[in-house]
């Protein structure tokens, strides 16, 4: 049998490039969903934290002004950790700052509910309540993620978020069961916000893989516990739980409301005007 070395060599080269391609593909499959998921988690917190920070100096009373700023700092701190980790997972050398300050609106992966303007105090509190209850349930599961760094961040964030849920639930009771005006305002807000809550529970291919690997909890499975906890507080606050109807979506794919652009303009202006500036 005659061996054609040239042919063999060519075959080997092809094999090698196929292997390389397979490795790259594998890296893409493992790392891209992870960094994408971490961007979702980080952006939800960065944008909500920024919205809360807009209350600084405008809170209804001094104590609440400080409370809102505290929650904003908690969320921005969580975003910092998650976006750093997203940079590591992506492997392109990006820091949390480069994600926060040098991405365009279509690159942000937050759910739409967190980017809506802060509105009046009832709006801020109702949004915080609906999101915090979800995050509390989500983080509780994420603490046992197969990704140890992510599990560690979740454990820290879970404690903070339990407080956010308690603080905002207390205000839901006071606003809902307060004056006729506060009741109407908070009920109107809950009704308006309801169509933005569906996106929190959406599971796409990116997350389905991570759920299968034990890295991410299944958001869809949290819906019932979220609903019953939210209903418990709303009912105690003499508020009505809206019916599920059409749900807005798009944030996870970079399709945002017009409000995100204005928020980013304000949030990113200093970093973009003075790139690389440090305190």
């Amino acid at each position, binding site marked *: 049998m005659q061996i054609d070395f040239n042919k063999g060599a060519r075959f080997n080269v092809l094999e090698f490039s196929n292997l390389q391609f397979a490795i790259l593909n594998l890296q893409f499959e493992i790392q891209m969903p992870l960094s994408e998921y971490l961007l979702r988690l980080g952006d939800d917190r960065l944008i909500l934290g920024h919205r809360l920070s807009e209350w600084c100096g405008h809170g209804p009373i001094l*104590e609440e002004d400080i409370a809102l700023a505290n929650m904003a700092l908690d969320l921005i701190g969580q975003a910092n950790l998650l976006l750093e980790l997203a940079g590591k997972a992506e492997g392109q050398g990006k820091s949390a700052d480069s994600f926060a300050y040098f991405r365009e609106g279509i690159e942000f992966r937050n759910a739409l509910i967190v980017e809506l303007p802060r509105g009046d105090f009832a709006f801020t509190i109702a949004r915080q309540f609906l999101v915090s209850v979800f995050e509390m349930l989500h983080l509780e599961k994420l603490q046992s993620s197969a990704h140890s760094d992510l599990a560690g961040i979740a454990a820290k964030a879970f404690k903070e978020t339990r407080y956010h849920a308690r603080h905002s639930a207390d205000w839901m009771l*006071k606003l809902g069961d307060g004056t006729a005006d506060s009741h109407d305002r908070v009920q109107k807000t809950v009704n308006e916000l309801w169509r933005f809550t569906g996106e929190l529970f959406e599971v796409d291919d990116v997350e389905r893989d991570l759920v299968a690997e034990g890295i991410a909890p299944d958001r869809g499975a949290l819906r019932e516990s979220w609903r019953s906890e939210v209903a418990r507080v709303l009912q105690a606050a003499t508020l009505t739980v809206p019916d599920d109807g059409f749900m807005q979506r798009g944030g996870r794919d970079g399709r945002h409301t017009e409000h995100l652009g204005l928020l980013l303009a304000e949030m990113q202006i200093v970093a973009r005007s003075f790139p690389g500036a440090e305190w």
Partner: protein
Amino acid sequence: MSEAIPATGDQQQATHVDSQWPLWEVFIQPRPGAPHEHCGSLHAVDAEQALLNARDVYARRAEGIHLWVVPSLWITASTPEDVGPFFDPANDKAYRHPQFYKTPRGVRVY
């Protein structure tokens, strides 16, 4: 004594002392076993909110591990006129102070 002690334990009944929400005094325990120390006051409409506000205003930089809040109206305070009769007699009685004793080894001093 200018304020009468409120007749009921219902904290929501505490009368407004100014045009804002009722005032509460906050006490924080810095570490296990240490006494709770007064750290300031705040406004809140009820006990739960007072506790949450105390957490945000006085415990956000790891100042302690336990909080008490109490309506300021429940604090009965001595008046400036009480200074003489209350505190002067303490000045000349060194034997009332326990500094003649040595603290036994092993006792933690806070």
